[in-house]
Each structure stands twice: as structure tokens, then as C-alpha cells.
């Protein structure tokens, strides 16, 4: 994987920020939430035009070939404006799987060009879950069974499904409109939805099979987990800015509340938490670009997600407190950030989960101080 130098990343950050701000910043997220809870397909096209989805795809396969650190820059900008488009999902998971297993497949180009979006169905309810002990089966070109917690299920054109096949796990592709597919939507705090998918003889195209599927999935999960951490850092960054502006202007007792020492010290603690999270996640992404051992990449991703969730939870919750009563209203934007943080924290494992995974991995590798 190629990594990018600091100047490339700075330029990328600038152009991503401009693109999102021109599109309406966080105000756009509110409008979309109120309208449908989905995303804006024109925005998908614009993002694709800027090369966003193919950022980590090698140039030979039609991407920018920039590495995960660059993906993290984009993810941070997505987080800052709480954009509902499936950017991290597509970069990390959908293309993360396809580029490893089927870089030749026409869906690659369509995903990079923003012509299609594919959600990834890899988890199942119940013990174990995915993918080795998957109860969702693929045989004779048809899927049977169910999948859970599918992000982006509501707006996607199709699904990449990890299922049990005749020769081990398979990755298959099915269209959203396919026969025998039903999608049960579970509404999330931010207005998005998770899909519970059930298949009864749903036709699907096999893309890959065997242990390669499992390996590619593990790698893609590491990528998307670290990118979700970056999205949380961007979100926390902006939530902190909003809060800082608020405590500088909100007056009580004839003074800005930000002049009170107790408020100042709490704001400093949030700022320190944010800076640590940003340093951690950026370091992790850069290290993942240089690291080839999957287990180490997974440990790094867990470190990033654990820190980003810890920070985002603390920052968005304290942000509500520092806003006082208006923080509890839907009218103020800070609530949108809290809600998005809840959803991103639960996705792919929260801080407690990732600390456990991280410590286990650290022991297994014998990483001692």
C-alpha cells in the first residue's frame, strides 16, 4: 500500500472540506434527516468526481492509490459535517472487499464512479456471527438465511453478502430488488437505518470463495474500523468547535459562561481528549499503511476505534451539558453530533469491545512495555 506525504494530505483535506462546506455543511445533514433519513445521490456523484471513493484503490484499478492515511483525512471531513453518505463504508468495506477479491469486477468501477452503492452484509445475530459459522447459506446460485446490522441497507443498489458456501465462505453479490429478499429497517439515533436482511432463495452472483474471503473480510474490517475512528475524530473536532463558540458567546450573570473557571477547565479537558484522539488515529492510519501483518493491522485499528469512541462519547455528551438546556433541543446542531456519535460508536465495536480485542492481541503478540 502506498502512503502519502503530509503535503498531499493537506491538499486533500482542503479540497474535501471545501466540497462539503459548499454543499451546505452540517445543515445538509439535518435536511436529509428530516426529509428521508437517507443520503443525496447527487452528492455521491460529486464525491466520486473528487476521487473520494477510490482513494485507497490502486491507480491500476481506477483509484487514487493514496493509502489509508488519505482515507482517514476524508473520513475526518465526513465526520465534521456529519455527512450521511456511505463514504467510510464504501472506501473501507465495499471497495475494501472488492479490491482485494475481485479488482476486475465491473462493480469496482461503478463504486468508484459513484454510479452504485453496495452495502456489506457480513454479520449475523446469535453467537459467533460471521463468517466461518454463518447460517446464511449460498447454494445453486441462491441465498437463504438472514444477515444483521447492515449499514446503508436502505439506500444501496445491492449487497455484498458473506455466506457459507459448499467450499467454505463465499462472497456473493445480490441486487436490492432481487426476488426473495426482504429488508427490515431499524431506525438509528441519527435518522439512518440498519438493515436486517432475510433471503429465501434469493438469486446472487458468486464473486469469491474459500479462505481468501475470510482474509479479505478481516482486512477490510480493520480498514473500515480505523476509518470509522477517523470519522469520529472529525465529528468530535467539529462538536468541540461548536461548543467552544457557544461558551464564548452565551452570557449568564452578565458574563460569557466561558469566563468561568469550571467551564474553562472542562473545555480544556475536552480539547486534550480531542488532540490525543486525533494524534492516535492519524498515527494508526499511517502505521497501517506500512504494516502488512493482518493481526497487527487489526490491533492498530482496535486501538484507533477504542480511543476515538472514548473521545467522541465524552466530547459530545459534555458538549450537551455545556450548551445547557438548548443542548437538549433538536433545534441546536450539537444534538446531531451526539446522535451520530452514538451510531458510529456502536458500529464495528465500541471502546470497551476494542480495548478487550486490543489487549488480547497485544498479549498474543507478546508486546510488552
Amino acid at each position, binding site marked *: 500500500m502506498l502512503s502519502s506525504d503530509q503535503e498531499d494530505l493537506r491538499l486533500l483535506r482542503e479540497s474535501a472540506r471545501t466540497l462539503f462546506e459548499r454543499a451546505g455543511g452540517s445543515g445538509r445533514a439535518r435536511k436529509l434527516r428530516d426529509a428521508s433519513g437517507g443520503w443525496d445521490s447527487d452528492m455521491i456523484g460529486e464525491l466520486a468526481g473528487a476521487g473520494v471513493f477510490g482513494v485507497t484503490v490502486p491507480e491500476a484499478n481506477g483509484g487514487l492509490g493514496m493509502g489509508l492515511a488519505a482515507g482517514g483525512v476524508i473520513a475526518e471531513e465526513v465526520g465534521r459535517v456529519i455527512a450521511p453518505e456511505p463514504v467510510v463504508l464504501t472506501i473501507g468495506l465495499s471497495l475494501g472487499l472488492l479490491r482485494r477479491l475481485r479488482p476486475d469486477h465491473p462493480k469496482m468501477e461503478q463504486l468508484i464512479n459513484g454510479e452504485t452503492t453496495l452495502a456489506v452484509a457480513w454479520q449475523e445475530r446469535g453467537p459467533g456471527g460471521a463468517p466461518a459459522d454463518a447460517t446464511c447459506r449460498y447454494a445453486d446460485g441462491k441465498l437463504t438465511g438472514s444477515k444483521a446490522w447492515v449499514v446503508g441497507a436502505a439506500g444501496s443498489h445491492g449487497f455484498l453478502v458473506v455466506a457459507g458456501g459448499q467450499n467454505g465462505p463465499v462472497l456473493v453479490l445480490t441486487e436490492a430488488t432481487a426476488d426473495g429478499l426482504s429488508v427490515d429497517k431499524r431506525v438509528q439515533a441519527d435518522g439512518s437505518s440498519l438493515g436486517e436482511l432475510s433471503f429465501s432463495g434469493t438469486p446472487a452472483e458468486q464473486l469469491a470463495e474459500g479462505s481468501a474471503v475470510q482474509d479479505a473480510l478481516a482486512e477490510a474490517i480493520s480498514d473500515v474500523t480505523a476509518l470509522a475512528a477517523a470519522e469520529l475524530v472529525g465529528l468530535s473536532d467539529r462538536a468541540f468547535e461548536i461548543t467552544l463558540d457557544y461558551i464564548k458567546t452565551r452570557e449568564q450573570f452578565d458574563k460569557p459562561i466561558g469566563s468561568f473557571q469550571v467551564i*474553562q*477547565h472542562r473545555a480544556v*479537558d475536552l480539547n486534550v481528549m480531542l488532540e490525543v484522539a486525533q494524534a*492516535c488515529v*492519524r498515527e494508526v492510519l499511517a502505521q497501517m499503511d506500512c504494516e502488512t501483518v493482518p493481526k497487527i493491522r487489526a490491533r492498530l485499528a482496535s486501538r484507533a476505534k477504542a480511543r476515538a469512541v472514548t473521545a467522541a462519547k465524552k466530547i459530545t455528551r459534555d458538549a450537551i451539558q455545556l450548551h445547557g438546556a438548548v443542548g437538549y433541543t433538536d433545534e441546536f446542531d450539537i444534538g446531531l453530533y451526539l446522535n451520530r456519535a452514538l451510531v458510529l460508536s456502536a458500529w464495528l465495536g465500541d471502546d*470497551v469491545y476494542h480495548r478487550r480485542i486490543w*489487549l488480547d492481541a497485544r498479549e498474543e503478540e507478546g508486546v510488552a512495555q
Partner: protein
Amino acid sequence: MTDWNAMSDAEFRKEVHQFFETEYPEELRHLPHRPKFAEIEHWHRKLHTKGWVAPAWPAEYGGMGLNAAKLLIFYEEQQRGGVNRGRDMGVQMVGPLIIKFGTQKQKDYWLPRILSCEDIWCQGYSEPGAGSDLANLRTRAEIDGDDFVINGQKIWTTMAHDASHIFMLVRTDPNAPKKQQGISFLLAPMDQPGVDVRTITTLSGETEFCEVFFDNARTPRENLVGELNKGWSMAKALLSFERIFIGSPSLAQNALGQLESFARGRGAYDDPVFRDRFAQAALDVEDHAALYARFADQLKRGETLGADVSMLKIWVTECFQRITELMIEAAGPDGGTVGPLQVGNVSVDVLASFYKARPTTIYGGSNEIQRNILSKAVLGLPD
């Protein structure tokens, strides 16, 4: 004269590591207390012969002339190896001030004596009424013929009972319009009738802090460094590098290593609740190191550090405290026991670590003062 800065970082690190690894006396590694000079004199002689007493000083004054990047490496290796800093107040505080603001005569006289430890220095800044509010200091120095006459009291003076000289901030103009004005930087010998030193016993039972009383003590006028009444800004100018050093990860990293082996030996490590708290602490240390690296890179690029570097100190000292608190929890019923606890072939003094962590949030500008600074200088919050 070796040009250390011309070496690659890796080469230099290896060289420093090697020296500390082979030359530093094993029995002095990770000393739990601050040694008196006699205890570490042998090591100091070795360092002096090597020319490594003053890594930050320019080579022309007998230092190593290290740039910021190399200096960080030097200190990192020193801390990693558990190498005692020795009685370095002279090297760290007085020397740089004399180099920057002193006369040629002062340089010629004092600097070689600092390097050889012929003079051993202590720092007289804090007073009973001037802690966080240091500019409130009241110890007076008045001109009397060729001398200054000093009256007043200093406190928390580290190792004053083992020092031959004190460098101090004193009030030379009590009528200055602002309390930061009217302060001067003065050098004085300790061995005289007007100076009385009393040790302070700390919570850990150590006596490294002292009170120093001045009752018509005298020092020659030529021991004024820099201009009269300009001591405050001079002393402040020195703190820039100290602010990243005081936030370095090594204290917390060392404590985490101790906690890990102790908790494993004690069985606490298998407890899921402990495991999560250990993972939190370990990640707090690792992620702090990422932020530290960001500031260190800034220094390496030749940039000056802003006030935001204070966040390193806040984070790492509070993290250090949590780690030592976890050690006490892991000790269970032995958590109140004085002295080393044996676990397998590891011996850990949990109380000593706990006590060592307490003052870190108080010294070098308490963490509350650091938060005040960050809220104003970095976040721009109003008065």
C-alpha cells in the same frame, strides 16, 4: 569535538543507549529517591570525562551542543535506562541562563564549575506565599556596598541540604507597578551564617525538599545575572524546552511496565475488570506518545512550541497517577505495605510509585494552572 547533530537519529540513539547500558552503574538504575551528590559522584565523573554532562549547552562552553531532536533522544534514552539525572539544576537551569544573559566573566567562572560539580546548585523560586502565583515572591535583596543583602524564605527547594549554591528569584524593587517587575535573578553561596536550611519530610518519608531561610545573608553584586529587575522574563524564557520534557511519556511508560509484571504475578491481570482498566491505562500511555511525537516533530522541524504543549503534562501526569493507583489495587491487602513487594522474581514498591506520582500534578505549574493557561492561550476563552 564530535558533531553529534551530523549523525542520523538512529546512530545517535544507539551511541547514547550503548553508553548508558554499559557504563551506568547497575545499582543506581531506576533509583527510587533523589540521590545526594556523594552517591552518584562516581557516575558524574564518568559523564564529565565523556563530556556529556551538559547535552544542551553549546560545545564552546563544554556542552554537547545537541539540537532539539538529538536532545529529545538523549533524554529519552536516559529515562528509558533509568539513568539518574544527577544534581543537574546547575546544568539545566543556571548554566543556560548564564550562557544567555551572563557576562563573560560570569561564564568563565561559573560554567566549568557547574560541569565539574565543584558547585552544586539548588533552585530558590517558590516561597510560602508564592507557589502557583510565583510572581508574588517577597524575599528581598538590597544593595549594600559591594553586596546584596538577602532576607526572606524559600520553600520546596529541592536538595538544598546537599547544595553549595542557590540561584534565586528575589525582589529588588518592591515599588514596581507590576509584581512581575522588580524581580532579579541572583546567585548566592549557601555556606554562610545568614543561610539556614531545614529539610521537609514528605508523605513518602523522603527529605528531598527543604526550606531555606535568609537572615541578612550576603552575596557579591557581581552575582546578579542579567539586568537588575529583569529576572522574571529571563526565568520564563528558559521554560520553553522544559515544557515538552515535563510531558514526556517515560515516567508513565515505566510505571505501566511495573504494573503489568506486578499484576501478572498477583493474578489481578486475569480479572476482566482489571483487564479493562489496564487496557485503558496502556492505551492512555500509547496514545499520549502519539501526541508527544507530534510536538517532538515540531521541535525537530525547528519550530517553537506553543502553549498547547502543556496538554502533554496534564495528560501524562494524571495517567501516571492512575497507573500507580492500579498498582495499589492489584496489591489487594498489601496495598498499604511500606517497602518492596516480591512477586516471583519481580520486586515492586507500590507505595513508592504511588507517592512518586502525587507531586507530578503539582510541580512545574500545577495541572490546574496548566488548564488556566490552555483555556486562555489556546482556546481563547475570556476573562
